[in-house]
């Protein structure tokens, strides 16, 4: 990717005016933090509410009869039976069973016909859009929503804040999605996010994005939050970062994302297989034969263990590698995700991270590291 020209989101001027420290990320100039600082931003989100700009992500609409069937042919997930007004986590897989990207799919079908709203990662969006176009059946149209911003309002106070502007959001539960007007602005809202907290993701026309964000930021509970805290929040919540914790070399099974594979798409299901790499992925579910697995690690010293750190067993033999790692401000301990040999993947297994010539003990731990607080009604 060329570093020369960085894209700006519709909220770039807002970030700068708030004192955001702008850094290159996935081809965009994004705020890594604001004057509050990464740790305080993280804690504020868990205590009250944080507003995140995620407009760098790709927003796509698939319209027309056959859209759901087409999407289903690319992911190991039940899309055909996804109810209208619901969102679901999905994975684009390749023929080798590796993961091309992770994404969110929302069913907005109604009287006007089939409609899916898809959100993909910024770094993968060109490739994902090409992938979907290559599988587009006759009668299905793909539209890239270049003129929309996407923000996330996350934290225990998010629902109270949203209710002030959009009372009907109070009726929504985790993964519900609705199109609605807020202050005269036409928005797509889902009750979801990537911090482990209750909250909303809001797609807004670019021209109105700053106006709506300023309204939200004017609420006393809300602070602007940068990518730094977004990373530590998602890590504490056990959520994968594509390109780090999952990629084309890891299958959903190795990536401990078996929960994302719908029953109906597994062997014995009514619509089993029928997605790229199904033989490999469904085979791994049956045989449990694979070498490495993604696990969560909790450090017992205070030293953070970073991405790329090698893991060894008590005999000093290399048994894995860290794919994401930081200090978890809410847990108050180093947290990491890693791929380890299957024999070392059981909970409570002790492994050692090689950090600057020392062996720091870490324990394979249940993820999420902290309790997720999604609102399920």
């Amino acid at each position, binding site marked *: 990717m060329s570093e020369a020209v960085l894209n700006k989101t519709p909220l770039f001027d807002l970030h700068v005016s708030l004192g955001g420290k702008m850094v290159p990320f996935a081809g965009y100039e994004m705020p*890594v933090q604001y004057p509050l600082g990464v740790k305080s931003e993280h804690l504020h989100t868990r205590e009250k509410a944080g507003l995140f700009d995620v407009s760098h992500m790709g927003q796509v609409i698939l319209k027309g009869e056959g859209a759901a069937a087409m999407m289903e042919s690319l992911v190991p997930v039940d899309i055909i039976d996804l109810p209208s007004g619901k969102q679901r986590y999905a994975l684009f897989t390749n023929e080798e069973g590796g993961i091309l990207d992770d994404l969110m799919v929302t069913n907005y079908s109604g009287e006007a016909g089939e409609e899916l709203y898809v959100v993909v990662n910024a770094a993968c969006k060109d490739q994902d859009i090409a992938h979907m176009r290559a599988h587009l059946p006759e009668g299905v149209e793909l539209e890239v929503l270049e003129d929309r911003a996407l923000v996330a309002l996350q934290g225990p106070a998010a629902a109270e804040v949203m209710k002030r502007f959009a009372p009907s959001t109070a009726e929504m539960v985790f993964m519900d999605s609705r199109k609605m007007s807020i202050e005269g602005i036409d928005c797509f809202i889902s009750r979801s996010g990537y911090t482990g907290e209750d909250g909303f993701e809001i797609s807004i026309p670019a021209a109105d994005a700053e106006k709506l964000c300023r309204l939200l930021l004017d609420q006393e509970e809300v602070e602007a939050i940068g990518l730094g805290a977004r990373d530590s929040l998602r890590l504490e919540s056990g959520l994968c970062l594509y390109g780090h914790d999952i990629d084309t070399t890891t299958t959903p099974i190795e990536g401990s994302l078996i929960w994302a594979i719908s029953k109906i798409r597994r062997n014995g299901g009514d619509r089993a297989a029928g997605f790229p790499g199904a033989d490999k992925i469904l085979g791994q579910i049956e045989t449990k034969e694979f070498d490495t697995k993604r696990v969560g690690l909790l450090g017992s010293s205070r030293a953070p263990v970073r991405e790329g750190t090698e893991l060894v067993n008590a005999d000093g033999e290399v048994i894995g590698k860290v794919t994401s790692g930081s200090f978890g401000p809410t847990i108050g301990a180093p947290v990491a995700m890693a791929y380890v040999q299957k024999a070392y993947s059981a909970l409570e297994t002790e492994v050692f991270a090689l950090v600057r010539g020392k062996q720091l003990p870490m324990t394979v731990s249940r993820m999420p590291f902290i309790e997720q607080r999604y609102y399920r009604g």
Partner: protein
Amino acid sequence: MSDSLRFAASHEWVRDNGDGTVTVGISNHAQELLGDVVFVELPEVGAEVEATKEFSLVESVKAASDVYAPVSGEVVEVNEALDDAPETVNEAPEGEGWIAKIKLSNAAELENLMDENAYKATLEE
């Protein structure tokens, strides 16, 4: 002996304790660059350190950053309070957030360090 600090270009400070030892930490500017400190790797008491060579390490939420010894000598004390409260480096970088005390092996090395004004001038460049 003056109580004022002297600085290395690599953003460490030194306070001359007047008894052949100095106290060492990182500058306020350095902690601002690092952001929230979550871990300080303290040197071992008794370790011999060499001026301009790394002797400690500070990790923030963002990244790890080496700390270089501003003078040569023997580590005679480390700030163990940082094990439990590494954020002290942010709160009082040039006071309670000190990292180690070093017994000078060559007091003349202090002359290589900058006074506060000279150090601040380097930050404005």
